[in-house]
């Protein structure tokens, strides 16, 4: 299951993906014939209006839902076929998440929240807190390390969320509308931070957004409409 460094394979491969949801007595097709290849180190934006299926696609990519047909490979591993236990281990080692609503644990302070993925890996407390402190300083929260989520603004919370997503240096970070709840100035800060992390460690980012301005930070924009890819272009 290990991802071999320098493997010629692309980081993420989606082949002929289809996702249906049964709704009462009919079947809603959320995604259809999705083919997508994302190389290592690319910041890929999945862009679309609400209901276009972009969040559903993210769920398939991250292994949170099983596709109806087709498959998703990350670093050569078919995540759509992993069971619950294997998925947990896979997420621990290879995936990071940034959520729209930050999703910090309310009873943990900033350091503990950031150190959480390391804790799941079994890293000793002193070591993981040292790492967490380092990354918190980098996101500019050096003075708020012992604050709890409720004591922080939305922007600060999201910065903690970003620190948490990157703390274990995962190969792939999924960001689901990371700026959705933020004001326009903070949005820019947060996006720049994500991009900076990704560049530093050659990490692959899958960014889901419906915000034009945010999409511009990506290397590539994949536009979804009614569950199909309607355009796929590089930004530069």
């Amino acid at each position, binding site marked *: 299951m290990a991802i071999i460094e320098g493997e010629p394979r692309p980081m993420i491969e989606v082949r002929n993906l289809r996702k249906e949801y049964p709704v009462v007595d009919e079947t809603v097709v959320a995604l259809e014939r999705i083919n997508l290849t994302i190389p290592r180190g690319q910041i890929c934006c999945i862009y679309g209006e609400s209901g276009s299926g972009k*969040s559903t696609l*993210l*769920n398939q990519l*991250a292994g*949170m*839902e099983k596709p109806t047909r087709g498959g998703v490979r990350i670093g050569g591993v078919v995540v759509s076929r992993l069971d*619950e*236990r294997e*998925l*947990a*281990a*896979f*997420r*621990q*080692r290879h*995936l990071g*998440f940034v*959520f*729209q*609503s930050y*999703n910090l*644990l*309310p*009873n*943990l302070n900033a350091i503990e929240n950031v150190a*959480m*993925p390391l*804790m*799941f*890996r*079994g890293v*000793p*407390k002193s070591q993981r807190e040292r790492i967490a402190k380092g990354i918190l300083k980098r996101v500019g929260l050096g003075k708020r390390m012992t604050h709890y989520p409720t004591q922080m603004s939305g922007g600060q919370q999201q910065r903690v969320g970003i620190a*948490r997503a990157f703390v274990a240096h995962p190969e792939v970070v999924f960001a*689901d509308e990371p700026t959705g709840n933020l004001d326009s100035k903070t949005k820019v800060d947060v996006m720049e931070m994500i991009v900076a992390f990704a560049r530093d460690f050659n990490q692959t980012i899958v960014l889901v957004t419906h915000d034009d301005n945010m999409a511009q930070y990506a290397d590539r924009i994949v536009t979804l409409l009614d569950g199909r890819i309607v355009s796929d272009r590089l930004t530069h």
Partner: protein
Amino acid sequence: MRFADILHLCSQNLWRRKSRTILTVLGVIVGCCSIVTMVSIGSGINEMNEQSLKQMGDLTIINVYKQGNYDGAGTSDSTGAGQTEAKLDDKAIASFTQIPGVEGATAQMSLNYTVTMTADNGRYVATYGDIQAIDMSQLDNMGYKLTDGTAPTKDGEILAGQYLAYQFYDRFRPEGSNMRYQPQDAGDGTYWTCDATGNCSQVPADQLGEESKPFFDPMKTEITLTIQTGDDSSNGGGVTMGMGYSSGATDMGGTGSGTGSAGTTGANGANGSGNTFRLRATGVLKEDYNKGSATSSGVLMDISQLKAMLAKVDQSAAKTVTYEQALVKVADITQVSDVEQQIRDMGFSTSSYEEIRKQMEEQSRGIQLALGGIGAVSLLVAAIGITNTMVMSVTERTREIGIMKALGCTVRDIRVMFLGEAGFIGLLGGVAGCLISAVISLGINLVYLGGPGEGGENIWHAIVGGDGVTRLSVIPWWLFVFAILFSTLIGLVSGFQPANKAVRIPALDAIKNEQ
């Protein structure tokens, strides 16, 4: 994930919802307390039973009878008909001592002749005497106690029953004042004393006057024993050895008046066909009805001496002595039933307190189970409380669980986390419950013993008990261990279903549940 980290998260989560945790723990405390208290009362009943049995008699002594001939306390069990009758003789006694676990054995021999006793050159006369003999080397072993003096070592030495001297009347005093009556312990530091006319009064121990004491001190006065072998003896010509229990010996005064008609024939001393022996008491026995009336109003001597006396009276009888009864002392109480069975297999009847003890034990076990059951119901309620708390906790934390899963927390860790919280509630409740029940138990015992007493001596008794201290509530150490483990187990079991519920929450919920 490290176990220490899981524990830390558990305690953090419990602490986050203090009041709910405390209330749930309180439920467990109540359950734990009721189980511990109930079982401890059961144990207390057990302890009381044990003590009252001890007062009845030594639990490790087995009475052995010739087949089909028994008349003692406790229960007996015959090995049934069809077996050849075993002789209870010196050989049999020797074989008893060979049984593993037996500390000692002795025959109990009684003289079935009418005897008269005189003291102080014939001034004091007793028309009745209960003469018994055992192997004096087994005196301590068999639980005979002395109030004064030492065991006899030489020929002609005997032990006097505790109230032997009251059996004598003074020939030099007029009728009506020629007897002394033994005062009866009223149990509260006072004694009942009666005179010949039947007037009784209650006086404190230190005000017992001269008229309450016997005419002489048996340890300082030589006693002359005369065995009547005349044809008027109710025992007839045949000489047998047997038990000579006098059922009348327990009544007040114990004057032996029940033997009056037989006694009058030899009342005036050794002028009949009797054989006379001069005896000296080296000690005074403590009255013990389990050992026969000789300890109260009779005389106890070594078997060899009684045999020698018998030989002078009737040569032929002395040669073929068999006994009616023997005592066997077992080293440990757990071996009593084994030894008893082996003796029965040899063809004797036995009785001991083992059967009664077993019955009482079974009874108190039943009580203990019933009381423990009542306690268990409240712990069951507490278990439901834990489940409720955990289900609520899981529901509240659905999103958190989803986040943790998305960030790579394994299913196993989540399960351990929730089981840990539930177990922790159980453990806390168990420990606190044990502490509180220890206090409750102490309280019950103090009330039962009637307050802390002078200098708080009863507090110590209430905690650890002691000789002659009866406690209503006894908590053996294993009950604490059991209660804590059981409470923790209850917590874990109660947390099982909620933990499964938590495990099934998909990581997707972290993203789905928007604020």
